[in-house]
């Protein structure tokens, strides 16, 4: 089974090598691909210097477009499993093998790494947890499926989901919306307990000012997604 880790990277010069080393050491049997989303720092140069596998986007597409590029690459190159993995050191590569084993032995199309099943490790700030709970309830209400960590950026897809995402993936703040999108076409989502760290470098793409936009946009996106059924 061919598996690949998709690492979207925007200005991750300080942590990208560490992230790749983590994958090489702790996720045996996984290939990886970095998607450099037109970083303004030396991310691309560092990738090239260290001979890392990198897809270089000529213009900045945002997190959604970057992740989608990874899915496109994975799908075109015949990978059976593709997993999204943050380049800023929040995610832990040792869970990847377990997640793949779980997918192989269960009938799951998308497996989301959730912080909130065993409630270990970094649990995010109170306000963010509230937002996450809100989305979790909204998704439950609209689809009947309970996802404890709908904003988690650590998620493993099989080929059928990869194909859908390669064609169509939300542009910004894509996680909750993209989960609902595949639930609507009858795909199966499950969660797997993982532990996440607090980010080491870089800042979250969701600043306080943007969080209002985030809540409104993602809510509407989920509602529209539900209308598409």
């Amino acid at each position, binding site marked *: 089974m061919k598996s690949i880790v998709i690492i979207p990277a925007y200005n991750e010069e300080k942590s990208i090598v560490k992230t790749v080393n983590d994958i090489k050491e702790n996720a045996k049997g996984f290939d990886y691909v970095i*998607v450099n989303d037109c970083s303004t720092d030396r991310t691309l140069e560092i990738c090239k210097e260290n001979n890392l*596998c*990198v*897809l*270089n*986007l*000529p*213009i900045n*597409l945002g997190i959604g*477009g970057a992740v*989608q*590029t990874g899915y*496109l*690459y994975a799908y*075109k190159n015949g990978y059976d499993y593709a997993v999204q993995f943050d380049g800023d050191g929040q995610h832990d590569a040792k869970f990847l093998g377990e997640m793949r084993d779980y997918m192989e032995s269960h009938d799951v199309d998308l497996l989301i790494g959730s912080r909130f099943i065993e409630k270990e490790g970094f649990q995010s700030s109170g306000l963010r947890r509230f937002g996450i709970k809100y989305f979790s309830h909204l998704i439950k209400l609209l689809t009947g499926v309970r996802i404890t960590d709908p904003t988690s950026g650590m998620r493993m897809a099989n080929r059928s989901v990869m194909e859908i995402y390669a064609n169509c993936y939300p*542009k910004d703040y894509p996680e909750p919306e993209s989960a609902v999108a595949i639930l609507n076409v009858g795909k199966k989502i499950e969660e797997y307990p993982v532990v996440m760290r607090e980010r080491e470098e870089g800042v979250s793409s969701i600043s306080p000012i943007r969080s209002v936009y985030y809540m409104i946009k993602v809510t509407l996106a989920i509602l529209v997604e539900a209308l598409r059924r």
Partner: protein
Amino acid sequence: MMTAKIQIIIGIILIVALMAIINMIRKRRLELKYALSWLVAIAFVLVLDCFPSLLNKISRILGIWAPVNMIFFLGFCFSLMIIFVLTVTLSRMSERVRKLSQAVALNEEKIEELMKELSEEAS
């Protein structure tokens, strides 16, 4: 209602605008497809400018008391329409740009991979 003077001034402005747009299309700075709505609008106003009595007739048909209000109303609707069409076009464009840049990124990686293989074979 309209003096001949303002009729001529408006007519000149419209014809200058029309020539400017046609010139831009000629120089390929403006695509005919997107300029079409402006050309139609200019033609429409030009007709009204030449036959002001039409204005009164149309506003009476629409049930608008003052012809000026009708101009504001129609102008507003027309502007909104063009802006909306532009938003739709923009969405389509950004989708195309996204697909293009993803294809570029994938191809670049493929080229580098091939170059590496080639240089390995050569050595």
